[in-house]
C-alpha cells in the first residue's frame, strides 16, 4: 500500500507555502538594510548621480533667486504713483527671465539624466532578480505560484523604481529648496522665521507618526496583489477546464473574493497615504496665517518693508511646498519599501549549492552510473527513497517501472541533481557526482520530459536549443528522425514558425515530437526518458522508438515508461514501490519471480 507520507512528501503545498509567507512576513527586513541595498544600485551609477545632484542644486538656485529679484523689483516700484525706478525694474526683470530660462534648461537636463539613471537601475534590478531566479534550485519553483513571482518582476520592481528615480530627485530638490528658502528668509526677516520653529517639527513628527502606520498597509497591498496575481494566472491556465464544466460564475465568485481583498488593501493604504498630504497642507496654511499676522505686526513696528513681506511669503510657500511634497513622498516611499522587500527577498533566496571546491569537470563520460544506499526525502523527516542502490553499466538500458507515485521521477531528480540526496552516494564513472561540476554532470545527460516545454521562439530555435550553433541541416535531420519534419515543412512558415502563434495550432503530441527532436541533437553519453512518449500514438511511437534505439546505442538510458513492450527490451528493470526497489532484474527473471512485475505485466491484457 502507499506510504502516507508519499504524496505529501512532495514539495511545498499551498498551506505550507502560506506558512512560509507568514514566516517571511514576520521576519521583517530592517529598513536600514533595505536602504543600504537600494543604495548599492544608485551608487553604481555614481557619475550620473553626482551630475543629477549638481543639476538639482543649480536649477533650484536659479529658480530661488526669482522671488528675491521680484521683491527687489517691487521695492524699485515704490509704494505710490510716480516713484518707480524704471531702468532698475527693467534690469531686474531681464535678470528674472534669464534665471528662469536657465533653470528650465537645467531642469530638462536633470530629467534626462534621471531617466538615464532610472533606466540603468531598473534594468540592473530586473537583471539581478532574473539572475537569482536562474540560479535557484528546482524545489523553489515546485512550491511557489508562478503568478506571485511574476508580480515581483513586473509590479514590485516598477514600484521601487518609480520611487527611486521620482522620489529621490524630489527629496533632493526639496532639500535644496528648503535650505535656500530658509537662508533667504533668514536674511529677510529672521524674527518671522521663528514661526517655522513651531510648524516644521509639527509636520515632521506628524509625518513620521503616519508613516509608521502606513508601511504595514503597503506591505499588505503588495502581498495581496501578489496573491491575486497567482490566482489569476492559475485560473487563466485552467480557462478551458472551467468552461468545460460551466463553472465560469463560481470561479468568478472566487475571483471576486480575492479581488475584494486586494482592492480593500490598497484603498486603505492609499487613504492613509493621502492623509499625510492633507494634514501637512493644513500646517502650511496655518504657518501662512502666522506669517501674515506677525509680518503685519512687524511692519507696524518698522521691522520689515512691504517688499520683504512679499518675498518672505513667497519663500515661505516655497519652503513649505517641498515639505508638503515630502509628506506625499513618504507614502510612496512606504509602498516602495514594501515592494523592495519582496524584490530583495527573491534576490536573496538560497541558490543551488555552489560546486564543491574540488569539483572537476565530468569529461570523457562512459556512462557507468551507481547509486549506493541512497536516502532522500523532499521534506525533512519524510523519506521518499530509502537505502536505494543500483548499478547501470555503460551503454545499458535501465527501465524504471512501478505504480504511479511510487517515486520513479524522484530517481531522475537525484541523478540530475535537481534535488540533493540526504545520505549515500551517486557516482558516474566512479566519480562522486557531488565532486563534479553541476553543469558538466547535467550536460552528460539528455533528457526528454513528460511535460513538453517549448518557449516562444521559432521551431528551429526550439529544436536547436540544446546545441547552440546547430546548422539547419542538423536540425532537419533531428526533426526527420523524430518524425516531425514533414509536419513542420507543411506549416506556412516552416521552421521559422513561431511557437505560440495561434495560427500554427500545434498539438501536444507534435510539441512532444519537437522536444524529442531537440534531444536527438544532443550527443551526451546518458539518456533520460521520463514517460517521454505518453502523448504520442502507437504508430508514431514505434517510429520514434526505432530512432530512439539508434539514439540509445552506446548510451546509458534511464527510461520511465508504462508500456511494457518497450521495457521488455531493457537490460535491467527496476520495479519501484514506495520509493524502494521491490525487484530488479531482466524481464525474464522478473516474470519468473511472479512478483509485482508480473502482476503489472498481466494487467495489460485485462479488459473489464
Amino acid at each position, binding site marked *: 500500500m502507499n*506510504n502516507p507520507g508519499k*504524496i*505529501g512528501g*512532495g514539495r511545498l*503545498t499551498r498551506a*505550507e*507555502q502560506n506558512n512560509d509567507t507568514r514566516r517571511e512576513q514576520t521576519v521583517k527586513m530592517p529598513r536600514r538594510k533595505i536602504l543600504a541595498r537600494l543604495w548599492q544600485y544608485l551608487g553604481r551609477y555614481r557619475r550620473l548621480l553626482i551630475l543629477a545632484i549638481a543639476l538639482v542644486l543649480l536649477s533650484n538656485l536659479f529658480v530661488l533667486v526669482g522671488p528675491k529679484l*521680484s521683491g527687489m*523689483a*517691487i521695492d524699485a516700484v515704490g509704494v505710490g*504713483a*510716480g516713484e*518707480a525706478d524704471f531702468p532698475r525694474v527693467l534690469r531686474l*526683470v531681464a535678470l528674472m527671465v534669464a534665471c*528662469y530660462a536657465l533653470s528650465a534648461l537645467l531642469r530638462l537636463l536633470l*530629467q*534626462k539624466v534621471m531617466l538615464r539613471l532610472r533606466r540603468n537601475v*531598473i534594468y540592473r534590478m530586473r537583471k539581478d532578480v532574473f539572475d537569482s531566479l*536562474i*540560479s535557484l534550485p*528546482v524545489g523553489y519553483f515546485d*512550491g511557489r505560484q508562478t503568478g506571485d513571482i*511574476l508580480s515581483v518582476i*513586473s509590479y514590485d520592481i516598477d514600484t521601487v523604481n518609480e520611487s527611486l528615480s521620482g522620489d529621490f530627485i524630489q527629496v533632493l530638490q526639496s532639500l535644496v529648496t528648503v535650505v535656500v528658502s530658509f537662508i533667504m528668509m533668514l536674511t529677510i526677516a529672521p524674527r518671522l522665521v521663528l514661526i517655522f520653529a513651531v510648524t516644521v517639527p509639527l509636520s515632521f513628527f506628524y509625518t513620521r507618526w503616519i508613516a509608521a502606520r502606513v508601511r504595514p498597509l503597503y506591505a499588505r497591498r503588495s502581498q495581496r496583489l501578489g496573491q*491575486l496575481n497567482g490566482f489569476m494566472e492559475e485560473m487563466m491556465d485552467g*480557462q478551458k*477546464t*472551467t*468552461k468545460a464544466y460551466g463553472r*465560469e460564475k463560481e470561479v*468568478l465568485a472566487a475571483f471576486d473574493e480575492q479581488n475584494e481583498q486586494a482592492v480593500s488593501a490598497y*484603498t*486603505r493604504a492609499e*487613504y492613509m497615504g*493621502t492623509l499625510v498630504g*492633507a*494634514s501637512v497642507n493644513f500646517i502650511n*496654511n496655518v504657518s501662512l*496665517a502666522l506669517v*501674515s499676522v506677525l509680518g503685519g505686526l512687524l*511692519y507696524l513696528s518698522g521691522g520689515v518693508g512691504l*517688499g520683504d513681506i*512679499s518675498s518672505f511669503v513667497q519663500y515661505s510657500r516655497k519652503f513649505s*511646498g517641498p515639505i508638503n511634497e515630502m509628506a506625499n513622498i513618504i507614502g510612496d516611499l512606504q509602498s516602495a519599501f514594501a515592494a523592495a522587500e519582496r524584490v530583495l527577498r527573491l534576490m536573496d533566496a538560497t541558490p543551488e549549492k555552489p560546486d564543491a571546491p574540488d569539483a572537476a569537470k565530468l569529461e570523457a563520460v562512459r556512462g557507468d552510473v551507481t547509486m549506493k544506499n541512497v536516502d532522500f526525502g523532499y521534506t525533512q523527516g519524510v523519506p521518499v527513497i530509502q537505502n536505494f542502490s543500483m548499478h547501470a553499466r555503460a551503454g545499458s538500458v535501465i527501465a524504471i517501472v512501478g505504480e504511479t507515485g511510487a517515486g520513479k*521521477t524522484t530517481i531522475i531528480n537525484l541523478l540530475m541533481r535537481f534535488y540533493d540526496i540526504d545520505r549515500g552516494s551517486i557516482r558516474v564513472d566512479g566519480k562522486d557526482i557531488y565532486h563534479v561540476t553541476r553543469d558538466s554532470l*547535467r550536460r552528460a545527460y539528455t533528457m526528454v*520530459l513528460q511535460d513538453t*516545454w517549448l*518557449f*516562444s521562439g521559432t521551431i528551429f530555435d526550439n529544436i536547436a536549443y*540544446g546545441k547552440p550553433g546547430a546548422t539547419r541541416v542538423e536540425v532537419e535531420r533531428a526533426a526527420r528522425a523524430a518524425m516531425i519534419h514533414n509536419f513542420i515543412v*507543411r506549416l506556412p512558415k516552416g521552421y521559422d514558425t513561431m511557437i505560440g502563434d495561434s495560427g500554427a*495550432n500545434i498539438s*501536444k503530441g507534435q510539441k*512532444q515530437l519537437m522536444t524529442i527532436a531537440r534531444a536527438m541533437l544532443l550527443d551526451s553519453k546518458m539518456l533520460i526518458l521520463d514517460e517521454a512518449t505518453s502523448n504520442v*500514438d502507437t504508430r508514431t511511437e514505434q517510429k520514434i522508438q526505432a530512432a530512439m534505439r539508434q539514439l540509445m546505442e552506446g548510451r546509458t538510458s534511464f527510461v520511465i515508461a*508504462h*508500456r511494457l*513492450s518497450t521495457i521488455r527490451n531493457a537490460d535491467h528493470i527496476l520495479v519501484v514501490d514506495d520509493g524502494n526497489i521491490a525487484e530488479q532484474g531482466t524481464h525474464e527473471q522478473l516474470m519468473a519471480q511472479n512478483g509485482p512485475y508480473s502482476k503489472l505485466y498481466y494487467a495489460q*491484457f485485462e479488459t473489464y
Partner: protein
Amino acid sequence: MKTIYRYIRPYGGVLILTLLLKLAAALLDLLIPSFLARIIDDAVPSGDRMAIFRMGGVMVLCAVLSMLTNVTANRMAAQTSGKATRAVRHDLFEKLSMLSAKQLDDVSVPSAVSRLTTDTYNLNQMFSRIQRMGVRAPILLVGGIFITFMMDAALTLVLLATLPFIAVLIYMVTKKSIPLYTKQQGVLDNLVRTVQENITGVRVIKALSKGRHEKERYDTVNLELADVEQRAGNVMAVVNPATSLILNIGLTLVVLLGAWLVNAGRSSTGNIIAFLNYFTIILNAMLGITRIFVMLSKGTASAMRVEEVLMMEDAMPILPEKKKTNTPYHIEFCQVSFSYNKVADNLTDISFALRQGETLGILGATGSGKTTIVNLMMRLYDADEGTILLDGRNIRTIPLEELHAMFGVVFQNDFIMADTMAENIRYFRDIPQERLELSAKDAQAWDFISATKEGLQHTAATRGNNLSGGQRQRVLIARALAGKPDILILDDASSALDFRTDAMLRKALHEKYRETTAIIIAQRISSIKGADKILVLDDGRIIGAGTHEELMTTNDVYRDIARTQMGLEGGGANE
C-alpha cells in the same frame, strides 16, 4: 476610454460630492492669501492690530475647514476608485473566462494576467489621482485666475496669454506619449512571458545548462523594455520645465506691467504682492494639471488594453431553438468539418452516432484530430461545416451553461489547482462530500488520497507539482465523474496510469456509469478495446469504424497497432 468611464458613472453622486468637497477645500485655500492682501493693504496702513489678529484667525479657520473637507474627499475618492477598479477587474476577468479558446490564444495568458493586474492597477491610480488632483488643480487654476482678474484685469490678461502655449505643449506631448506607453505595456508582457517560460521550463533549462542563454534572451527583452520606458519618459520630461518657463515668463511680464501700473497710480503694491502670491498657486496648479496629463497618458494606454478585451465580440452566439429532430441517438456528428487556421482542414467529413450509455473509443496518430472532435462537441470551437446534435438538438441552440453541464471531461494535461483534493474534485460545483469520496473511489484515486494524513483535505501544490502524473490524472477523472455527467470525455486521460489501475478504472466505469455515454481517446488499445464503437482517425478523416473485433478483421492500421501493442507472444500467452 469610453468603456472605462462607464465604470465611474455609477458613483456619479458620490463623485459630485467628492468634487464639491474638493472645490470647497480649494476655494478655502484660495481665500487664505487674500486675507494677507487685506492685512497689508487695510489693516497695516491703519495700524489696527486687532484687525490683523482677526484676519489671522479667519485664515486659521479656513485652514481647519480646508483640511477636514480634504480628508473626507480623499477618503471618498479612494473608495470610489477602489470600487470602480474592482468592477473593471471583475468584468475583465468575466470576459476573459467567457472568451472562446481561440480568442484567449490570441490574447495569450501572460498578457491577460498583466492586463488584469498592472493595467487595472494603472487605472486605479488614474481614477484616484484624478479625483484628488484633477479637481483641485483646475479649481485652483480657474479660481486663481478669477481672483487675480478681480484684482487687476490687465495683469491677469498677461498671465492668460501664456496658457495657449501650455495647452499646445500638453497636446503634443500626450499625442506622442500614449503610443509609447502602449508599447511599453506590450514589451512588459514579453518580459513577463519570458520569466514565466523560465519557471515552467526550469528542469529543461537546468538539464541543458542553458542558464546563460536564458539570461541573454531575457536581457534582450529587458533592454528593450528599459529603452521604451526611457523614451516614454523623455517625451514626458519636457512638460514640467517648459510649463514652468512659460508661466515664469508670464510672471516677469506681470512685474513689468505692474511697475508701470503702480507708477501710473492705477494699482497698488499690495495688489502686486498678492498677485505674485496667487501666481505661485496658479503655477503649481498648472504643474499639477500637466502631471495629470502624464497620468492620463499612462492610464489611457492601460485603459485601451483593457477595453480591447472587453470589446471582444461574443464568438459563439446561441441560435434560436428549432424543432428537435427525432432520433434514437444521444450524440450525432453529421458530416462535420473544421479548421483552426481556416486554411487546411483539421477535421474532414466526420460522421458518427452514439446511443445513450454507449462508449466510443477514438484512436489515431498525433495530430489526427482526436482532441478537435472533443473541442467541437463541447463547443469550445464552432464547426465550419456540418451539424452536431445532442438528443436531436443542434448544439448551437443550447445555452452554453446547459450544454457544459452535461459533460464531465478530462483534457490532455488538464490542470490542478493549488488547493485541496476535495476542492479539485468539486471544482466550484455544489457536490456533497459522499459524492466526492465515491467519485474518487471510482477514479481509483481514493487509495492514495486516503493514505495521506489529511485525506480529501490534502493540498496539491501549484500545478499539482507534488503529485505524480498518474495521481494527477486520477484526481482529474474523479473531477469528471463527480458531477454524474451525461457524457464523459477522457482525452488521453489515463496515459500515465499503469495498466492495472487503468483496467480497474475501466471496470468501475463499466459497472457504475451505465447510463453515461463515454468518449475515450487513448493511445492504448487496451483502454478502448471494450468500447461499443471505435473510430480510427488519420489526418482528420475516419479511416475505420466498428468494434474491436470488426476492426481487427477489416482495418489494417488498427490491426497493426493492436499487434505491436499487445505483443504477439504476450497476447498469445494470455489467451
